């Protein structure tokens, strides 16, 4: 009797085990995932790039765009941070649980190793300050050719891992700052289109002979030595990132700045970037096309005095917050424009999603809509956190100075350059936007550092 009972029990256990195994087999359908390699570039104004502009000559970037998803409405939340900072947030993990539940994404990999590499590459030596080193892992003297060799190694590593996202962040559009003379000479040489490597070598050679060795990273237009160089008749300005002060300065002195030359230098620098992108894309196409996605993106734009400003940390107008963003999915042969409004905080989830895509999505806009991955409202802040912007997908944009209570309202559908403040005739929308921004004030975390953090978004 006991023996029969034990036999029955064993049979029951075996049946149960088989059933569990069968269930596991049906739910563990392997999702084909692909790695994603991201090239991120600092301070690139998209208004000079193909697709975003009608007369751009940067053919390599155009070549990447022609076989990618191109996001036409990507805006940053804070204009001094990059993707790394967004991936470092804790909140993203919670957000992707929904994908995990659907067995769509390999979260176990991302949790431990989502950022394979985040490097800063600039053609200079850096005197790393505390708050700067917080932003970047690695700084070194380099050149385009050296860069390419490094990138080839990184790409190989990225392709050999499983289901991860590798990000390389560049600051090619930033310039080193040494002394007036050397810096000015360097810029002048670049305008004359001297080779990049010669410049770097010359820079390296002369670096030790300068006693102060005071090198900082700077936004191209954001410091007085650069601006001085482009001011005719030797007029000096005291650079400021205070908006009001800058407006006053530009009204009185702006006519002396040679903006054409300034733009020429910027475009020259973009040409270097374009060359590098072309080399990397060719490498990708010939070796990793079948196993990896390829993303190129910016982190924010640059102001070219559209709103009396030459920097990118002070004001959240579109020329500062907009950035370029394209994602070439493995096997993609045609361009697909994505019109949905997205911010950097959505970028992290989109990039995560791309690792799980086994074929090209036919309608990425529709994906964004159905997964609520687009932004109906994008909040952006200036460095100090006292000027905020809301950019609504329906075309309204508000810019609010939280301290002086000044508010500007623009209808981007009719006024894409944010020139005509219509807050006085749209008081209800103004009030609603002011309220939304004020409500943000209990959610932001200010630190004692220089800028409010991307962790807030």
């Amino acid at each position: 009797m006991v023996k029969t009972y034990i036999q029955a029990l064993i049979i029951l256990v075996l049946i149960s085990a088989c059933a569990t195994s069968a269930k596991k087999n049906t739910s563990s359908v392997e999702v084909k995932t692909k790695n994603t390699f991201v090239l991120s570039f600092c301070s690139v104004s998209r208004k000079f790039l193909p697709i975003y502009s009608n007369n751009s000559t940067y053919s390599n970037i155009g070549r990447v765009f022609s076989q990618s998803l191109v996001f036409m409405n990507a805006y940053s939340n804070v204009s001094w941070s990059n993707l790394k900072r967004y991936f470092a947030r804790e909140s993203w993990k919670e957000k992707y649980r929904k994908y995990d539940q659907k067995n769509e994404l390999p979260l176990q990999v991302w949790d431990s190793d989502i950022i394979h590499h985040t490097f800063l590459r600039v053609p200079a030596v850096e005197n790393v300050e505390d708050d700067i080193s917080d932003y970047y892992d690695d700084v070194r003297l380099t050149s385009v050719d050296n860069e390419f060799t490094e990138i080839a190694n990184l790409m190989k590593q990225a392709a050999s891992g499983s289901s991860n996202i590798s990000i390389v962040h560049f600051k090619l559009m930033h310039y080193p700052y040494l002394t007036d003379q050397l810096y000015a000479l360097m810029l002048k040489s670049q305008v004359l289109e001297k080779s990049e490597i010669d410049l770097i070598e010359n820079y390296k050679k002369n670096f030790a002979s300068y006693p102060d060795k005071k090198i900082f990273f700077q936004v191209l237009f954001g410091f007085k030595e650069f601006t001085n160089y482009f001011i005719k008749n030797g007029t000096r300005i005291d650079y400021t990132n205070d908006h009001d002060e800058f407006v006053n300065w530009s009204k009185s002195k702006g006519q002396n700045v040679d903006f054409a030359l300034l733009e020429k230098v910027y475009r020259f620098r973009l040409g270097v970037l374009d060359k590098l992108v072309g080399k990397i894309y060719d490498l990708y196409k010939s070796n990793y096309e079948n196993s990896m996605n390829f993303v190129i993106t910016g982190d924010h734009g640059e102001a070219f005095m559209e709103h009396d400003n030459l920097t990118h940390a002070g004001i959240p107008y579109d020329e500062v917050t907009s950035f370029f963003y394209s994602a070439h999915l493995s096997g993609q042969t045609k361009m697909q424009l994505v019109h949905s409004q997205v911010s950097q905080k959505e970028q992290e989830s989109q990039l995560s999603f791309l690792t799980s895509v086994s074929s090209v999505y036919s309608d990425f806009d529709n994906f964004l809509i159905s997964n609520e991955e687009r932004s109906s409202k994008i909040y952006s802040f200036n460095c100090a956190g006292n000027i905020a912007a809301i950019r609504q997908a329906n075309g309204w944009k508000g810019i609010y100075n939280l301290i002086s209570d000044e508010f500007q309202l623009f209808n981007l559908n009719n006024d894409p350059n944010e020139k005509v403040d219509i807050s006085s005739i749209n008081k209800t929308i103004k009030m609603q936007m002011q309220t939304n921004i004020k409500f943000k004030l209990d959610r932001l975390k200010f630190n004692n550092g220089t800028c409010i953090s991307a962790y807030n978004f």
Partner: protein
Amino acid sequence: MKKNFFLILFILYSFPLYSITLDENLRVVNLEHSSSKDVKVLNSESSNDGERNFISLKLGVRNLIINLEVLYPILPEKAEAYVKNNFFLLLKSFESIPTPYVGQITKKQNCLTTNPPQLVQEFDRKVELKVLSYFTDESRKPGSCPDKHNKYEGCQSFFFLHDKKAVFKIQVFVNGKSSCSKELLGFIKGFKF
């Protein structure tokens, strides 16, 4: 007949202007002010985001303009962050604005040494009041430096009422002849907490 019609129209048109008192504006948070009848509500706006409400009032009190904002409902810890962030930004506006890039030097006129803002913390019937007073110019912007002929005093106060789950911001400017914080605290004392 025609005369009466215009009279009725005039009464209908002007009635709401005079009938919406300070107390009536604050009824939603169940708060009254002892001088409500003497306070002119010059402008009243309200809004919400589906979760919270916001009221903004411009008040005429004797010869002063007082701006009053109410945000509700709000949890105590959120209210604390809201007040903290507001003060942080306010105080920062008196400093040179920092930048993320070392070397971008701001040469903004700095009034911190000559006219430093004063942060006062007081209690009124167990309600903690934080008042920041500062000198400014006719722009009335915090951080703008006053001069001899162009000197205004501004005060901003924040307080949170636990039972009403509401955070209040009150702002007043005086032309330097009277004490800003005295005016502001006097107005706050009129609230029936």
